[in-house]
Structures are given as C-alpha cells and as structure tokens.
C-alpha cells in the first residue's frame, strides 16, 4: 500500500531514534529528497527504541559521549519530551565511592550539576531504599526520562514540514547495490530506489543491512533484561509517570526506574546473551516486538534478590507483570558506529546508538555528511576505527562478552582487554616476552609497555611507587626507570604497531599535497611531519611522511589511528589511477633506537655512513646491517638522538637480535611504550592524536602551525588560514603538578587524564568557543622531575607561571603553567635529538 519513490538523494534505513534524528538534521542543514523507511510500523517499528528505558544519566567520563548526551538532552528538552526526575547512583562497596568522586570530577569537567550523598541523604530523596546496604550516592539532578517515540515523530514532522522527507513504513530492504565501491541503490520488497547516499540507522539489524552492500557494521544484538513490577502504592501516590529519582544500583549493575505505578528493574549483570542480526524474529513471528524476546527468568534471579534487598518495602508484594529480554546493540569497544563505512563510499552507518545520545548522533551525522566534519569530534565513534580483525562476529562477541558486565563497572582509563589478545605480534615477540614485557594492546598489537626485567633499575634510580592503588593500576615505576636509562644510555623500543602506507605513482605528490597542511614537496630522502585537517580545519590526523623517491612516499601513522587514516587516504584517492595506495603495515616492523649511545650502537653494526652530514635529522636512507637492508629514519618522539629502524618483517627478528647483542656493550635497555607514548613524549611536549589533537582543535591552538603556509591547496586550508588570522581561543600548555598530596587522606595522587583544570577559585575554565580545559595527557617527566599535564587553556590562563588547580577524584591540586605552546620542557632546543 506504500508508494516508494524510485530515486532519492538520501535513503535512511530505519525509523528508530537515530534514523528519525538523522532525517530531521539533514533536512535542517538543507538536504532535500530524503526518503526514510522502516520494515515495521510507525511510530514504533519494533526496534530497540520501542522498548527502551528512555532515561538519561548525562555524566560520562568520555568527552565525546558526554557531549553527545548533553546535546541530545537539550534536543529532547526543546521538543518538550524531556522530563527531569533526577538520578542517584548508589554504592554498596567502598571502591564505588571512589568512583563517585571520579564521576564528580567528570561532572565538573562537563559542567553538570552533581552531588555526593550520604546514605541518609539518599533515603531522603528515595525513602524506600534500604540504607543498611548503601554507603552513599552520586546524585545528578538533571537526570531525565524522555519520550523517544514522540521525539521520533517530531523529528520526522520537522523534516516533512521542510518538504525534505518522505517516510514509508513496512518496507523491507532486500539488497543494496554498489558499483565501483560506491552505493547506488537500495532494493526493497516494494521496488528499487536509486540513492546517492544511504544511511543505515537500523539498530540491531544494521550488520545485516550493511552486509547487503558488502560493508561491515561490527555490532551484536545483545540482551538487556528488564521487568516491570507493580502495582506499588508508593509510586501510584506520586500521580506521575515518574515522581522519584531513578536509582542505579551500580554494584549490582541494576537500575530501578519508576514507570507510573510500577517499578522497572533492569540489569546489565546477567550473563552476556547475544543474538545474530539474521536470526532476530520477524515482526509477525514476535509476540511483543522483534526486540522484546522471551524473558529467560533464570538469568535474572540474582538481580531479583538484589532488587528486593535494596527496596524490600515496595518490591516484596508487587507482581512481575512484564518481563523481557530486550535487544540492544553492543560494539567491541562500547562506542557507537558512526560515519561512512570503511568499505562502501556514501554508505553511512548510524548504528549502536542508545536513546541518551540518539538526537546528538543525528546532528553529528548530518553535519558530517554536510560539511565533512561535525562540531562534536567523532574520533571515538568513527566506524572506520576498526582493523579488519575487529570487524567480525568473533571479535565483536568476545569483546562484548567482556565489557557487557562493565556497563556499570568501574573501568580504569588505562584498563586493558583480557579477550582477543595475541592477535598481532611483532616478529621478535618471543624476545620481548623473554624480557618480561608487560603488553598493552595497540591496534591489536601486543606492545611492550614496560619490561619486568628492568625492575632492578627502579632501585638504581630511586623511583618511588605510587601509593594509591588506582593511580598505580596499569602502571609501573619501571617505566620511569626505563626512561632514565634511555636518556643516559640507549634504549630499544618495539614500534612494530606503526602503520605504514606506501603512496606511489605520478600523482602521488599532488595527491598528498591536497591532504597535508605542510608541504610534502621535500627532497628525496627527507621527511615532513604534518597535520591533516578536515574541512572545518580541525585535526583529522597527524603523521610523518618520508619521500623515498620522486613519486614514492611512505606515510607512518600511529597504531590507534591506522584504519581511520587509511579510510581518509583511500576516499581521497584520484580515480585516474595516477596514485597507488598500499597498506604495508604487516610488511615492516619498526624498532626505535634512541639515546646518547644510539649512534655508537648503530654505527657498530653498519658499514654505511650514517653521520650527521650523511643522514641529518629528519632524513631517511637504506643501510646494511650485515647482509640485511634496513631503512633508518632519523627522528624521535622521545627527544633523543637515534633512529626508527624499518625492517622487512622477515628480517625483523634478526635485526632485533643484532641490535640487542651489539647493544650489550653499550648497556642497551629494552624500553616500553610507557616511555615512548607518555614520559618521553610529555617531556618533549609532543602531541598525540586522540588526546591533544582532534577535530575540535586547530593546528594553531595545538602549537603546530608553521611560520608559512604552503601555496598548494589542501583540505581545510580556508579554515586553517582563518585560524591563523584570528587570536587562538585556546593554547595547548604543559603544566606541572606542584603538590600531589591529597587533602583528604594525605597520600600522593597522580592524575590519569581528562581531569578539569580550574581557576584558583575552583571555577571551570571554558574558552571562547565553549570548550572546557581538561587534561589531555598526564604522566611523569622523570628527567625534569615533575608530573606533567597537557591541557588547552584560554589565552588569559595560558601564561607561563600561572597558578591553577587540577581536580582529581573530587579534590583539587595546585598546578602551574610551565609551557604555553609547543616548546619542549626537556631539552627545549632539541640539542640532544638533532645534534
């Protein structure tokens, strides 16, 4: 009975909260000829939106998610479907109270009103809570419940009023046509519709829809159990849909939320229960809806007991009237899956989005599709962030199984995954293992973070341990010792996770010039470090490019950004075949050799001239080590003299062994990524993509603008020029912590990152663009003898010597601006590195 058009500019598949939000924001940004459809009926097509709990707790440790949530809450409020009820997270265990102090800190950072409560104060707000088992609470007054179905209708109506949208219910997608890697059309049970863009906003069905186009949307439908218990006179007496604050019983991973006269109890505590998008029942086969599956009571009994324990007065006589295994979307890392898919041009994913961030995600996607970038940086949510090994069911299920029960968990910012390990190992992995490497995972690689075999150095250098378990978690004083050993002698660093792209062909230079801020037209054998910008002038990435020949460039980027960067390079390749892009990451291993004795060590192994004259700083050449040809690249991220040694993978074990054996005479130390990525880097003030650098900041603010701008045009140039012409709204600074002693318990504390920087009056610092000053990186500077923080500060605070505060675990510590801009704190003239 529908009348599906035969063509559209954009087809949006899905009418849940995300699809509806996307069509509204696209329409408002001027898009027309949008066609949206859903397999189910409107306004509730039967996806996860239809059975969502619809509550929003805005405090999140992650800036991107907090921003999306706050934006969403504002949008719900503007639509008149946001009911503020307040929410209390309660602690049963002492470590949860510590986590609440951390949440208070995040609340401060994002400007959200919040309060720590005693058990008695919890009972004042929610009298039926059994305070005998409650240690305290974290109260967010702005917690709200929303009407996500109504919001969806309003979104669609907004787009229709603009004449931009046609929505058709009851349309099933059968196929998505792709030609030359670009989406062409969607084939449905009601006909084919040609489309320039297709947005998959199909929730738990997204993997199935994307697969029709040969793309992957790595999520799994997972069960979230909830029951409805009632009637409860105390709740009926409120006369409201929701009259009491929502309770999150954090240590049992449950929540209790009033719905009229009933209490909804939901859980993230039960065993992970996963489904497959292809096996979800159809609407007709579903008793309730396809995403409200039969309740498996046995999985919920533990939660019943805990809910009874928490609210015995109201829950012991009420009846369980409704109970479901609700389906929602889980991703390997817990972040949404947004943006153009890695495989198919103009096929966009807007998946794995929960009610709390739906409207914000819609805006983000629409801006991204319109401008090439969004106001809120999508670094964590970008669907192209996954390596191939992470885009299949095995990986998705393994990781989701691991993090499902951490939904309400206390997750350390440095926490490492237990599942899906040893996926990618350096060719000399056995050697680092033998040295007692403690591996952190980077882009799937097992990367030594420090070596237990260096434990004796801790005493040698007199390095103190961190007294607080939280600060010492996923950390070791050995890292600081390795740092000092490297600065004193020579260190070998496993850099196998480096991502290597070889870009060749007659068009290679022009192609790269179009992408990079700094000129790639350097002499053969020279290199350039450069930002790559999005159209808005924010960072897309930063990386290093070596010119290996007139028409051959080697791009090296970090393990965490490899797939995103590869997508960026691939989507901008010219179609005339003049440029070839090859991802050679697996073909090479890289070993860093740095320190005052690095030159002596490498020279002892090669007959070739690697003197400063022959191979000055920033240059690269192939040399022999015995019979093996390696590429030396004279550069350093840790501020020391030395090289990145690029070795074909099959030679890498041999080269590791030769360097290691020859290094014994020079006292070589195996040095972990703790030094490379944190201590060494921070002493030099080097910026890291995803920490200091993201789409919301410009090279000018990051202190990475060169004196001159190259003549060639490049993406983001207009915005870059504008940023250069204006006073920067913020300056990236290096700060030192002046006193580590906690006012509360008198022990030294060490920040982990993302803490807010405050004025001496304890006020949050927000720059002229509305961005808040938070710690982007934190770590010890063992050589400078200070604990270092990087943070963007507005110009009035970005003054060397300025005194400020950092808030950590809800306590304030004095900090001082040591550097405003990019000058290194250690060896400011780069004498060690370049000399």
């Amino acid at each position, binding site marked *: *009975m529908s009348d599906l058009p035969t063509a559209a500019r954009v087809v949006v598949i899905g009418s849940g909260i995300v699809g509806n939000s996307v069509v509204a924001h696209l329409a408002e940004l001027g898009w027309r000829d949008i066609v949206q459809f859903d397999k189910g009926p409107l306004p509730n097509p039967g996806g996860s939106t239809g059975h969502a709990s619809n509550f929003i707790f805005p405090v999140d440790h992650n800036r991107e998610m907090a921003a999306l949530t706050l934006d969403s809450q504002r949008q719900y409020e503007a639509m008149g479907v946001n009911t503020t009820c307040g929410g209390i997270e309660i602690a049963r265990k002492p470590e949860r109270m510590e986590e609440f102090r951390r949440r208070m800190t995040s609340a401060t950072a994002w400007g959200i009103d919040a309060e720590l409560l005693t058990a008695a104060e919890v009972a004042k707000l929610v009298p039926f809570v059994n305070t005998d088992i409650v240690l305290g609470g974290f109260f967010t007054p702005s917690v709200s419940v929303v009407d996500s179905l109504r919001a969806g209708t309003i979104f669609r109506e907004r787009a229709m009023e603009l004449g931009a949208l046609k929505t058709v219910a009851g349309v099933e997608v059968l196929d998505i046509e792709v030609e030359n890697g670009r989406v062409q059309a969607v084939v449905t049970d009601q006909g084919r519709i040609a489309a320039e863009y297709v947005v998959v906003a199909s929730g738990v069905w997204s993997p199935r829809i994307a697969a029709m186009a040969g793309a992957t949307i790595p999520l799994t439908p997972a069960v979230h159990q909830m029951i409805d*218990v009632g009637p409860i006179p105390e709740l009926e007496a409120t006369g409201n849909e929701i009259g009491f604050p929502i309770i999150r019983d954090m240590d049992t991973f449950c929540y209790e939320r009033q719905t009229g006269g009933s209490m909804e109890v939901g859980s993230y505590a039960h065993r992970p229960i996963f489904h497959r998008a292809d*096996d979800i*029942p*159809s609407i*007709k*086969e*579903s*008793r*309730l809806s396809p995403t409200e*599956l*039969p*309740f498996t*009571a*046995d999985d919920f*009994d533990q939660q*019943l*007991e805990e*809910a*009874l324990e928490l609210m015995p007065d109201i*829950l*012991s*006589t*009420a*009846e*369980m*009237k409704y109970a479901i295994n609700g389906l929602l979307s889980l991703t390997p890392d817990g972040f949404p899956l947004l943006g153009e898919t890695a495989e198919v041009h103009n096929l966009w994913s807007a998946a794995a989005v929960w009610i709390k961030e739906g409207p914000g995600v819609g805006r983000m996607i629409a801006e991204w599709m319109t401008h090439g970038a969004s106001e809120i940086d999508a670094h964590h949510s970008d669907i192209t962030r996954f390596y191939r090994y992470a885009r299949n069911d095995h990986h998705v299920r393994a990781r989701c199984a691991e993090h499902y029960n951490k939904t309400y968990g206390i997750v350390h910012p440095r926490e490492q995954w237990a599942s899906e390990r040893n996926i990618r190992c350096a060719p000399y992995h056995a050697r680092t293992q033998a040295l007692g490497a403690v591996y952190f995972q980077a882009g799937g690689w097992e990367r030594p973070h420090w070596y237990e075999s260096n434990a004796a150095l801790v005493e040698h250098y007199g390095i103190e341990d961190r007294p607080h378990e939280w600060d010492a978690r996923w950390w070791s004083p050995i890292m600081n010792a390795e740092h000092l050993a490297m600065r004193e002698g020579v260190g070998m660093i496993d850099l196998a996770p480096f991502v290597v792209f070889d870009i060749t062909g007659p068009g290679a230079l022009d192609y790269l010039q179009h992408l990079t801020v700094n000129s790639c037209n350097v002499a053969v054998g020279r290199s350039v470090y450069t930002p790559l910008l999005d159209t808005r002038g924010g960072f897309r990435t930063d990386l290093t490019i070596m010119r290996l020949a007139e028409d051959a460039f080697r791009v090296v980027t970090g393990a965490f950004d490899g797939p995103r960067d590869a997508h960026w390079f691939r989507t901008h390749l010219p179609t005339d075949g003049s440029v070839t892009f090859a991802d050679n990451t697996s073909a090479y291993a890289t070993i860093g050799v740095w320190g005052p004795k690095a030159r002596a060590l490498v020279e002892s192994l090669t007959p070739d001239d690697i003197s400063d004259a022959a191979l000055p700083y920033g240059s690269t050449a192939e040399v022999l080590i015995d019979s093996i040809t390696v590429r030396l690249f004279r550069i350093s991220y840790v501020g020391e003299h030395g090289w990145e040694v690029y070795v074909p993978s099959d030679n890498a074990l041999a080269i590791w062994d030769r360097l290691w054996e020859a290094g014994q005479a020079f006292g070589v130390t195996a040095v972990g990524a703790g030094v490379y990525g944190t201590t060494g880097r921070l002493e030099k003030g080097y910026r890291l993509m995803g920490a200091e650098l993201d789409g919301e900041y410009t090279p000018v603010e990051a202190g990475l603008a060169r004196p001159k701008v190259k003549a060639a045009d490049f993406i983001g140039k207009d915005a870059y020029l504008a940023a250069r012409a204006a006073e920067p709204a913020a300056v990236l600074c290096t700060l030192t912590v002046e006193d580590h002693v906690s006012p509360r318990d008198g022990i030294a504390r060490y920040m982990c990152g993302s803490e807010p920087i405050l004025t001496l009056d304890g006020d949050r610092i927000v720059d002229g663009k509305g961005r808040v000053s938070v710690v982007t990186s934190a770590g010890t500077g063992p050589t400078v003898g200070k604990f270092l923080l990087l943070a963007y500060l507005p110009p009035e605070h970005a003054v060397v010597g300025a005194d400020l505060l950092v808030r950590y675990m809800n306590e304030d510590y004095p900090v001082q601006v040591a550097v405003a801009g990019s000058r290194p704190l250690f060896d400011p003239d780069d004498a060690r590195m370049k000399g």
Partner: protein
Amino acid sequence: MSGLRILVCVKRVPAPGAQITLTPDARAVDARNLAFTTSPHEECAVEAALQLVEAHGGDITVLTVGPPEAEEQLRFSVSVGVQHAVLVSNDEMAAGDDPDPQATARTIADTVRTLEAEGDPFDVLLFGNESADSGGFQVGVRVARMLGIPIVNGIKGIDLADGVLTARREGDAGFEVYRMALPAAVGVKEGINLPRYPTLPGRLRSKKAEVRSIASTTEPGGLTMVRFATPTVELSETVLLGAGASAAAAVVDLLGELGLA
C-alpha cells in the same frame, strides 16, 4: 474439613500472539524465538484454585504431562502460590512429541490415583477447557470419566459452599448454573478471573521448590499427528477510505451504504 485438596492440570504451550512458524519437516513448531507459557485457560484454573484455597483453606498440586522443560510452567505456578508440583514425562515427550489426548488423560488419571494412594483424595480437579495449542477439548472429560467424578466444561465462575461446587457457564444471554457435590472436576475458561503474576519473593521461592518427577508409561491413543501446515490467508482487496481524521466523512458514507448510520 481441614481444607481443600485441589489438583490443577496445566500444559506448557508457546505464548500466544505471534505467528507460528514450523520446523522444516513440519512436524513441530519452530520454538527458537517462542516464549512458553501455561495455556491460558489453565493459567486461569491455577488462579481459580488459589482463590478457592484463599477462601476455604487447603493446598494445591499442579500437574503437567509434557517435556522436562514444562518444569518452567510448574515453577511459575509455585511462584504464584501453588504448594506442590508434579511433572510426568517420558523420552518421547522429551523429544518434543505431544502425547495424544487419550494418552494424556490416562497418564493424568494414573498419576492422580498414585497421588491419592499416598495421601488424601483430591476434592477438586481443575482443567483448562482446551489447550491453546492442540485444542482437543477432551482431556478433562476423559480424566473425570476414568476417575468416576462429575465434570463440566466451559466454566467462567466457581463458588464452593457446604461441599457443593457451583459452576457458571456462559450462555447466549446469561449464565447456566451447574452444581456438583465434591469431589468434582471443572474445565475452566479464560475470563473466569485475571490470573495474578508472581511476586519477586514468589519467583525466588519457586526456584527452590521441589518438583516431583514421575515417568509416564502410557500407550498412545488413536489420534496421531502426521504433520502441521500453515493456513493460506485469503487476502481481500482492502478499500482504503483515507488517512487520518479527514477520512471521517468517507467512513460515515460507508455506514450509510451499509444501512448502519
């Protein structure tokens, strides 16, 4: 009288409301996405028993003949207040074969005799009018006949006084009234009451309850399922009168055409 002794016979069936799909051999319902429940008439029979015991004292035994999974339905009955649970099963049922009505009735009658031999006789036997899935309309009658006690089907109201059970059955313009001296059996119809749901403590209690297991050895009867089939739906051509409130005029025109307005 020290209280009533009531037996309720229940059947595990897929929860109604969803389109039913079949396994490829069409010999069973595809249960992958199905919820299972107590057949609705029998859910009401359990509620009727609970109300009788609340009014008159006594205890309730719930009995099912079916696969081991039917323990879920027995425990559900316990969770709403039933005291005893008995599961009668055998290998064929465990493999998914639904026993025919004659075999089911014989099994129940044998089990009742066993249970009564161990203790007091049952005063009231409650059945569902018919099972939601197979709809045989006969198990209760067969059991009552085997046990020699009276039964009335289609009952939507039960009262008990002085050892006499008064049962009401819906007729065209009201209720038919039946009276039976105890022991008596009743085939209960949905609508007699609104069955209660378990409380949280009820559910937790039911987890720990003992479910007695008895092996069934009954021979099959004369009605044998061969295969299932899905009925073909006759699609009429729907006349669309319009969308939204603006269609009201067309609706009233239609009422006029049909001579109804």
